[in-house]
């Protein structure tokens, strides 16, 4: 059945447990409305380290899963690493189909502008 499932098990797991959905008071935030999707990211810092990340997203399950994955990954890492966030490699590790690239690139743009 997995070969017919449009969602990888990673995407399903992330979509089912969106622990990082929400907002943060204080800190930086960015919001993008593009390509028919909407993404907002919030970040608080502990010096140059990312203390917490939250997101809100309107879009398909892949976009939500990617946003959740990004938050899980980057909490605790130096803020300088945000510039290295790469949508394509995240898509690969989550098994997101290439047709969705346009939308996941919106997440990439949001992440990068969060880092600058």
């Amino acid at each position, binding site marked *: *059945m997995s070969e017919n499932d449009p*969602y990888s098990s990673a995407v*399903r797991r992330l*979509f089912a447990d*969106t622990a990082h*959905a*929400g907002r943060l008071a204080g800190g930086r935030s960015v*919001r993008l409305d593009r390509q*028919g999707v*909407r*993404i*907002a990211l919030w970040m608080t810092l502990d010096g140059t380290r990312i203390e917490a990340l939250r997101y*809100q*997203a*309107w*879009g*398909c*399950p892949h976009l*939500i899963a990617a946003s959740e994955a990004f938050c899980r990954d980057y909490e605790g890492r130096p803020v300088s690493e945000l510039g290295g966030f790469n949508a394509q490699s995240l898509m690969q590790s989550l098994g997101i189909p290439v047709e969705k690239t346009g939308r996941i690139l919106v997440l990439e743009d949001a992440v990068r502008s969060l880092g600058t």
Partner: protein
Amino acid sequence: MSERTVYLDYAATTPVAPKVAELMTRLLTSGSDFANPSAVHPAGRRAQALVATAAGQLADLLNCDPQQLIWTSGATESNNLAIIGAARYRQKRGRHLVSMPSEHKAVRDVLRALERDGFELTWLAPDESGRLNPESLKNALREDTQLVSIMAVNNETGVVQDIEQLGQLCRDADVLFHVDAAQAVGKLPLDLAAMPVDLLSLTAHKFYGPKGIGALYINERPGCHIEPLFFGGGQQRRRRPGTLPVPMIAALGCAAELAKGRIPADLKHLESLRDQLWQGIRNLDGLRLNGDPEHSFPGILNVSVDDVEGESLLLAMEPVCVATGSACNSQDREPSMVLRSMGRSDAAAQSAIRFSYGRQTRSADIEFAVGHYIQAVERLRALAPGQAA
């Protein structure tokens, strides 16, 4: 079956009725009823008798002459055969055709193909409840109009068109009238003897028959003929050749006979499910019914909500099986043409969920679905950024 699912996608396809499955099983395992009904030998004649019985059963459901029915592989083929076949047959008289943007793709895309071949199309938009105003059809008919194609029951919204009235306008103007009745046959009473319909498409799997068999009704009268799409053996008076799939045809006949006896009871059951569903979800903030409460097949309920994306909603509702848009375009994620033609915004169309249910659906299934729907909507709303920052 690995997980519990609640199947509320009867408009996409229904399970096969036990009686129909039994008949097919009997025919598929019979050592004597499997022959080619075109053969004149005794085995062939037995097969032919099964086909004749099925034609009688379907004719009985529709109140038409069995001779007016052609077997096809389903409503997609029936629509193609009716529309392309009639348009080509009559193209010397004129090349203007009329339909609606809210038709099924198996009508819309056929008409678009004819448009590329030089036919001229007029697309009549429904009102915001999904119905066609007869006046606008009347105004659209021209000297060179040859065919009007309007569906009986919309597959996404369940909206029912006034086929009698629309058909009469066509009849008065000497224009052929095709009805895609894939979602109506076996579910709503239809009396073709009393209806001004020339061509009518149906498919068994929407009313508890198997997938892969359908029929086209052709009201053969002067001017009402079709050119075939296929060529081959002389079967079905050359209008649709190919070896007749006897067990499938017999199954369609059996499903038709069953339906005839059950339509009133089925409708009552569906109405009660629809009412339960609607009561369960109607108070959800921003909920909107896509359809016409007055003129609807009760087995379909289509609703939109604000601020929720359809694909995510579908996944969040699992294991409830519902549809966004019609099943055929579930794979390409463009917002529903049906809903946009009713004036819905892209966002509203994208959040639309079609609940469709049937004979096996129980009240507990609806209750389960209501809970999952509300929970999924609330969760995804909390997840979405506000409309403007």
